[in-house]
């Protein structure tokens, strides 16, 4: 299994976590991105991710590799969903295990922050009003 994956199926968190278990590790940090029922004041009913998979997987693996090297953690992996999702589903999960906790927190934060900036993944929100809209990350717009 690859350290970074895209999947159209619900993420199995127990299987995911099992990949990071290591008896030499005392710390495990996990981040889940959940589908939220609102954004900027509007009620969200569903979420849709468009993923350009060839590049997303490659960049995702780069990010994981950078985190392993930069923070010296033992294991790191991540899975990102594609396609249509319901409320409360897990859209993305990042897990890091390491002997000590400080670097596990930092590596996990690094991976999700970089993923949000660098992965070619776009989010479309479907609102209660029947309207749907592609969501732009404001911070990214500043990078143009």
């Amino acid at each position, binding site marked *: 299994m690859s350290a970074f994956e895209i999947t159209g199926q619900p993420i199995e968190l127990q299987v995911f976590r099992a990949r990071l278990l290591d008896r030499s590790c005392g710390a495990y940090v996990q981040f889940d991105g959940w589908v939220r029922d609102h954004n900027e004041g509007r009620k969200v009913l569903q979420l849709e991710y468009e993923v350009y998979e060839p590049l997303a997987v*490659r960049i995702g693996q780069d990010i994981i590799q950078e985190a392993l090297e930069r923070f010296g953690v033992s294991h790191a992996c991540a899975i990102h969903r594609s396609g249509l999702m319901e409320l409360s589903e897990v859209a993305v999960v990042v897990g890091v295990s390491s002997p000590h906790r400080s670097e596990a927190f930092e590596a996990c934060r690094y991976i999700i922050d970089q*993923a949000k900036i660098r992965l*070619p993944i776009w989010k479309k929100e479907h609102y209660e009003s029947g309207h749907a809209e*592609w969501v732009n990350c404001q911070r990214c717009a500043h990078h143009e």
Partner: protein
Amino acid sequence: MKIRVRYFAVFREATGTGLEVIETGAASPSELFSECVGRHPGLQKYTASLVAINDEMAAWDAQLNENDEVLFFPPVAGG
């Protein structure tokens, strides 16, 4: 020269296509995007945040070559 252009997400919806092959004299992705805005007025209100050439992230002033595939990415908002 012939260039393949891929549009994603809001760009795909604004142009009504995910992929088109065009004849162009554009020297860079930057010039090419302006040309694409001319062909698809729906693109006018957007700016592309990132560009890739043949599945590698590229600079906006990179050189384009015959048969390159150029990917225009709207701003991302993952997670």
